[in-house]
């Protein structure tokens, strides 16, 4: 049911495809100068550190557009970090 870009998704973002459609905070590993293409595909860019770009996509459709970009190597869903006390 999904296209070949699905292999770029980590298990958490891949699972999100089958859940209720919602905005997703994601981290991307990109190749080359990708920011303009990412924005055009619907990523609200929050930060970039070298090849790692973070941001939010509004829904599954935008996630698919972003994932399909050749400059995108991997997408990881944002996940909880817990304090270590």
């Amino acid at each position: 049911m999904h296209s070949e870009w699905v292999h770029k998704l980590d298990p958490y973002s891949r699972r999100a495809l089958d859940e209720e459609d919602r905005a997703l905070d994601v981290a991307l590993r990109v190749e080359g100068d990708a920011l303009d293409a990412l924005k055009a595909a619907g990523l609200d860019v929050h930060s970039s550190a070298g090849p790692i770009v973070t941001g939010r996509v509004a829904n599954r459709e935008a996630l698919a557009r972003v994932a399909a970009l050749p400059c995108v190597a991997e997408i990881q869903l944002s996940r909880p970090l817990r304090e270590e006390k």
Partner: protein
Amino acid sequence: MDSKLDPRLRVLLDRRSTMTTREAARRVRVGVTDEDSVEVLLRTRGMPKGALEAHGASVHVVVEGAESIASVAVPASSLSALAGEEWVHEIEASRELFPELDLSIPECHANAVHSLAPSVRGRGVLVGIIDAGIDFKHKDFCNGDGTSRILLLWDQNAAAVANGSVPFGRVYTKADLDGVLKNKFGAPSVPHRDAGAHGTHVCGIAAGNGRAKNGKFVGVAPEADLLIVSAKGDGTLGQSNAAIAAYSWIVARAAELGRPVAINQSQGMNGGGHSGEAALEQAMDNLARLSGVVIVKSAGNEQQMRIHASGQLAQGQTKVVTFESGGSNVTDDIVEVWHDGADRISIAVQPPGAPAPTNFIAVGGTSKTKTSAKNEVNIVSTDDASNIGDVRTAIFISKGDADRIQPGKWRLHLRGDTIHGDGAFHAWIERSGEPRADEQAKFTEPSNDATISIPGTARRIITAGSFITRGDGSVGQISIFSSRGPTRYGLMKPELSAPGQMITSTRSSAANETAVPKIQSSYASMAGTSMAAPHVTGAAALLLQVNPKLNTTQAKQLLMRAARKTGFAAGAPDNTWGAGKLDVAEAVRLARTVVFPTITNVTVTGTAISWTTNVPTTAAVRFNTHQRRMLLGRSSGSLADLTLATQHRLDLAGRPPGTYFCEVLAFTADNWETLDDAGGRHHVVTV
């Protein structure tokens, strides 16, 4: 003469006949500084110069008066003789009310550099804290004039303002905070609070100045200025994405200010490959390359949490890995299984009481099934996960149509369909956290190794374990909770260990009194590697004061070389202690003198790499035909040249044909190291 000794010291001396000084001291709650020395206070009059030292004592401070008070560490074997001196009126075991009794700072020798002339207290350096919040009104984060030491506070959970400088939340400036602190008319309100108190406590360890109690509880870098990010999340949670944004923001602001920065994060998660491949870890590693940036992360508290299991499969063999679910009705139980892509391992799940497992899911496959108890089991397998050539299979167990996940033993069946690698696999259970910490799923046959929490497995950063200076367990021993390495790719973690158990530091006034009891009204005790990491972060800030150009890798070398391998840490370096116990004074001493080699003119000619160094060095090239693995520190081979010289050439001729991604290493005669991997692009050699 023993009548001059307080009762606890007398009991301690009595018990030394049957146990070590350290153990006797622990039992009567007397501080110790090494195997035989105890922390005491002397009431004295007319003490001759050098008299304490003659008894083998190490003097911390003497408060002069008609009757002087001396804080010293003295060998237990000298106590009776010391008590016999006429100028000694009384010897008392040190207590919590005395300035030096916050044990962790003297333990890691930070006070020794605070009192140097000129002092090394973090002046000119920034400490960045990424945590759940801060009590910015706490006096320890204010200057003597009552203004804030916090230059910028990014509250990622705050309502955004129009045309804000950040993608979410809002930034409060020092002027905003000063306005509140000084009750300035018209100053904007700053509604930020730290209800959980974790961030406030962490920040106090790294950089509190002790002003709330006249210097009784001073952090490691008390004169550093602060950049604070209150991480987006819910209470005790942060979010990995927001953490990436936080790191980028702190580094950018430090660059604008033209100042070096030491950044602390005391948060983590278990799900992932534990090889540094997570996006957050990659981002941290990228920033850790920069001059003037040092990144420190807590190792995690997972050593005894039964969250890791591992094994090895032969071709056609099936193994069962069992975990016990706590039966959550809130969050999923999530297990991740990782193995080399050369092996094809299928996985099936058998719920409690089920006669057989579900269908096996092959590499790259997915499935979603309902159990007889109406729980949902979702398996998602990813080939070449994160492009590192490994297979990642995540198993999500949710309550589905039931009211909770079925508690009991769940079995993962792993079948070696094709084994062309070593057949090894690792599995981790994701942390459940609050409010269901007591429902954390656990393996029945765990391995305590490889329990470092992510992002602590990032290659370039400094990961800190915890040892005991107070609280349960033997003083000086590693904390029972402190996560152990190595990474899945075999890199040693943690890098070193620091005090992390029952540490007294700044308490947020917004904290619940029952959950976070007050000590001296403005302080509280907490335990965890969360508390160990900021000791190291503060130490890094002091190193950056001495040498503002250091990057994380260089600071790491200094801290590891300086680490003490004494007492329980005698076996270091290892994957429990790292290099040993934090020694701030020694690291600062090294930072003043060390010259790290610089590598220039790296050239690839045919199958050979050549380069130049500024000082005579020995040389090595590490390589892998898989670039992403090389980036994470997993080499498939190496070459070395042990001749000290400033020009080197190493040739990969004779290797199997292929494209080799190489990193070049230079080692001075004193073994200080520099690594050049062309900024992560690697030097590429085709054979």
